[in-house]
């Protein structure tokens, strides 16, 4: 893929440093994908006979138990069969290659990171790899754009990615499709890096759809279950609806700004009219893309179903990296967004609504991964509120901290599920290993996971000194600061003046923070506290997951605890370097952020800031206290004999029946219309029936009429003869 056309910007300071090898970053996971893919194929494939059709008879049950490409299960996550599980014959190599590639990528990334810190960069480092689409005046090159924003994302992706890869070794080792799993995981990281490092929007789009593809493959990893395959397909199609928005945004950019390069669009956007139609249209369509990818209203329905995939996948894709692509895109296109206050208000409003909406559903979910899924949707709403109001640094900061504690939560739930599986397998119980009602009192059996999960819960709830507090509070403060004296305040969304919208956003933010605290504590209580409901036979088998899984958890625990240190607010200047991330991202998003706040940085008087921090802390503590006081884990009963919920609880449990609503409102009508109206009605009916077969019928009809004349009676012939004579005579005379 690399060819001499690769040009080094000699002038750029980074060119001299290791950053020159940045194109190696995506290449490493690609290599991992190729190796693992080859191993998967070798293990699975059996070449067929030369003449496929002869001797076609199905001799028994194919290649026996544990088929290569997935495996027969009784239920989705059942790994080990009786006795020692038959691991894939290449499991060893794959366990080395898969995570190894990520570790190498992370090391290279950190090297580049330190190189970048050491160098003073006025403009981003653009490295052209090769000329991709030289067409007319759309001269598109495959370029890598390296600047602090993409560097931050790369660090998050490779860092958290590495930890999750290591965790996966433990979690997926006994799965017969193990090499295929790591092939897809590496391919995912490759596309994610392309997305983050892409220098032009179409290249970013390649990464964008690539990660959608990998999430499709990984969600439907255990495809023998129709539910999983459906979830994968649903994820891909809903993402495609988002990608449609992204595509239209790109067309608008090309048609109006004449370029598709990220930097090109950024500086051309400056001379667009402020709040003009073009900027708003581009921004809104970009945001449509984000709602698809980052699961915001209305296109969020795929994320909860995506829990059908293996847990590390949920951690990597549906918590830390892929779903944050939307936030990254808004930050990257901050040039366009800052010129369209109405669009920014929409982003903030939708973000707040999603945060609130998802939080309410999270309250009543029983499946541990569903709780975390809705919590992710809610937290993503927060990030969009951040970047929506123009506080890009706050959005990215929350993105980073969220990656840490949400990955920890998911992996923690992963090790819990892993333990539950081991127990259920030992006693051949086919109960649901993910349902909290079957858990309870696990703190005795899994102390390390228990402590780390509590750290993450405190972080996400926003308890001071934990990472979540800093980032969430900064977003809320940013929203509050912009309620007056910012372009947003002047603009209005659907008639409502900007400042009121922002106040509502702030309110929703607070309420969802409260609910986040409640449902997280609820999850902790039901899983770890109270009596154990798994059942006597399984209890002895419940044990802590092996070190290869709990190791990464510990690292993530540390990150979740001290993540706040990245961007300490001025108020608490004592703890560490003030505004670390602020300065780091300043060259990229600084100028656009200022444009929203009319020139000077958004500031709050000291007292208001104190009040805001106070309320945030109060909310967090109140949430946890309320949950502890109200919820009685002891009263819970195992899933199989749990009473059906009714009233509000049932509505929430069934996620407001949104899925069923979409299905009935959009999917079924389109299928029905296209089957009966378009296909049978129009295609077979009108075109085929009327014109094609109709004209054939017409020809036959004329033939039949002609034959009627041959009656055999001479009389008729005489008449016909006479009529002929008459017509000729008439014609002759009256000519």
């Amino acid at each position, binding site marked *: 893929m690399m060819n001499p056309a690769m040009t080094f910007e000699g002038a750029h300071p980074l060119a001299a440093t290791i950053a020159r090898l940045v194109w190696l970053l995506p290449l490493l996971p690609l290599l991992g994908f190729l190796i693992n893919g080859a191993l998967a194929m070798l293990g699975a494939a059996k070449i067929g006979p030369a003449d496929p059709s002869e001797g076609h008879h199905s001799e028994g049950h194919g290649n026996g138990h544990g088929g290569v490409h997935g495996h027969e299960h009784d239920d989705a996550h059942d790994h080990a069969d009786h006795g020692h599980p038959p691991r894939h014959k290449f499991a060893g190599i794959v366990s080395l290659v898969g995570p190894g590639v990520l570790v190498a990528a992370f090391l290279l990334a950190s090297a580049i990171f330190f190189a970048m810190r050491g160098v003073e960069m006025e403009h981003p480092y653009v490295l052209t790899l090769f000329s991709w689409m030289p067409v007319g005046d759309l001269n598109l090159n495959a370029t890598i754009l390296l600047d602090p924003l993409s560097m931050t994302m790369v660090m998050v992706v490779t860092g958290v990615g590495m930890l999750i890869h290591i965790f996966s070794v433990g979690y997926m080792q006994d799965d017969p499709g193990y090499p295929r799993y790591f092939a897809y995981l590496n391919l995912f990281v490759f596309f994610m890096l392309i997305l983050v490092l892409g220098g032009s929007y179409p290249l970013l789009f390649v990464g964008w759809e690539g990660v959608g593809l990998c999430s499709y493959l990984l969600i439907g990893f255990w495809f023998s279950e129709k539910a999983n395959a459906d979830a994968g397909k649903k994820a891909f199609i809903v993402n495609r609806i988002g990608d449609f928005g992204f595509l239209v945004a790109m067309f608008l950019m090309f048609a109006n700004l004449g370029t598709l390069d990220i930097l090109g669009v950024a500086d051309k956007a400056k001379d667009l009219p402020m709040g003009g139609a073009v900027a708003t249209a581009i921004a809104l369509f970009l945001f449509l893309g984000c709602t698809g990818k980052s699961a915001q209203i209305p296109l969020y329905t795929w994320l909860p179903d995506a829990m059908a995939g293996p847990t590390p996948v949920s951690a990597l894709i549906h918590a830390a990296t892929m779903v944050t692509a939307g936030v990254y895109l808004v930050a990257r296109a901050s040039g366009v967004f800052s010129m369209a206050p109405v669009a920014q208000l929409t982003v903030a409003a939708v973000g707040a609504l999603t945060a609130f909406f998802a939080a309410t559903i999270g309250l009543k979910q029983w499946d541990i991964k569903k709780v975390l899924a809705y919590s992710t949707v809610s937290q993503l709403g927060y990030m969009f509120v951040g970047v929506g109001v123009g506080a890009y640094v706050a959005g990215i900061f929350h993105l980073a901290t969220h990656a840490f504690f949400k990955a920890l939560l998911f992996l923690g739930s992963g090790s819990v599920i892993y333990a539950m599986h081991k127990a259920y397998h030992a006693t051949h119980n086919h109960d649901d290993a993910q349902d909290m009602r079957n858990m309870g009192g696990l703190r005795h059996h899994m102390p390390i996971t228990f402590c780390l999960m509590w750290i993450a819960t405190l972080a996400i709830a926003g308890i001071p000194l934990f990472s979540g507090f800093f980032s969430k509070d900064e977003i809320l403060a940013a929203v509050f600061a912009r309620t007056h004296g910012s372009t947003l305040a002047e603009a209005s969304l659907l008639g409502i003046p900007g400042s009121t919208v922002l106040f509502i956003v702030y309110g929703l933010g607070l309420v969802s923070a409260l609910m986040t605290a409640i449902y997280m504590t609820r999850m902790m209580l039901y899983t770890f506290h109270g009596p154990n409901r798994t059942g006597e036979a399984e209890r002895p088998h419940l044990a802590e997951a092996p070190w290869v899984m709990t190791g990464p958890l510990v690292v993530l625990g540390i990150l979740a605890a001290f993540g706040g240190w990245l961007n300490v607010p001025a108020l608490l200047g004592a703890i560490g370097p003030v505004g670390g991330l602020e300065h780091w991202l300043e060259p990229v998003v600084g100028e656009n952020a200022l444009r929203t706040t009319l020139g000077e940085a958004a500031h709050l008087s000291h007292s208001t800031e104190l009040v805001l921090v106070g309320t945030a802390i109060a909310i967090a503590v109140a949430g946890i206290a309320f949950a502890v006081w109200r919820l009685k884990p002891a009263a819970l009963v195992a899933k199989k004999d749990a009473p059906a919920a009714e009233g509000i609880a049932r509505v929430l449990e069934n996620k407001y029946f949104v899925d069923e609503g979409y299905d009935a409102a959009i999917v079924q009508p389109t299928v029905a219309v296209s089957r009966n109206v378009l296909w049978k009605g129009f295609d077979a009916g009108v075109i085929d029936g009327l014109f094609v077969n109709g004209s054939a019928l017409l020809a036959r009809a004329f033939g039949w009429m002609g034959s009627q004349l041959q009656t055999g009676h001479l009389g008729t012939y005489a008449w016909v003869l*006479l009529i002929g*004579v*008459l017509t000729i*005579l*008439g014609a*002759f*005379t*009256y000519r």
Partner: protein
Amino acid sequence: MQPNEFHPIAYSAAFYFFGLTALASAIAFVTRKSPVAAAMWLVNVMFCLAGLYVMLDAQFIGAIQVLVYAGAIMVVFLFVIMLLNLGHASELADARGRWGQVLALLVGLALVAPLLALSKGDLLNRMIPPDLAARAAAAAAAPTAGGVIGPVAEPLFKEYLLAFELTSVLLLAAIVGAVVLGKRRTDAR
């Protein structure tokens, strides 16, 4: 015989006499129920026509008309009618009922209408060949060697000789055909 030899009124009176009787007998011929009566009326038509031919200076044709048409062909018709014992009109249904006759009249009118329309126009004078006078003079001038038959026989054996020979072949075919069809098939019955 040319009008100038007789008194013009007598000539046209005779002409009209023959014309009208021909017309009347033709109408009678068509409306007769019994074939024999119809045949008789047809013979009468032929005789009137023969008269007309003679008046139109085609004496030979008049003679042939009487001899061949009335004499031979009608005789054969009568012979066949008698042979097949079709004389009585009972089982031969008449024309196709009231509605049929009205339609027939309509068709007849439709046939005649264009001709009348034409005759109103200058069709007739256009038909008069420019060199009529010259031709009449030549005919008159030429010696009437063959008498009345000469002017007919000469073209018959000069320009239309081939046609003449062909008619003989036609007659032969007709004879053979009639014989074969008429023969009683001993086996076919």
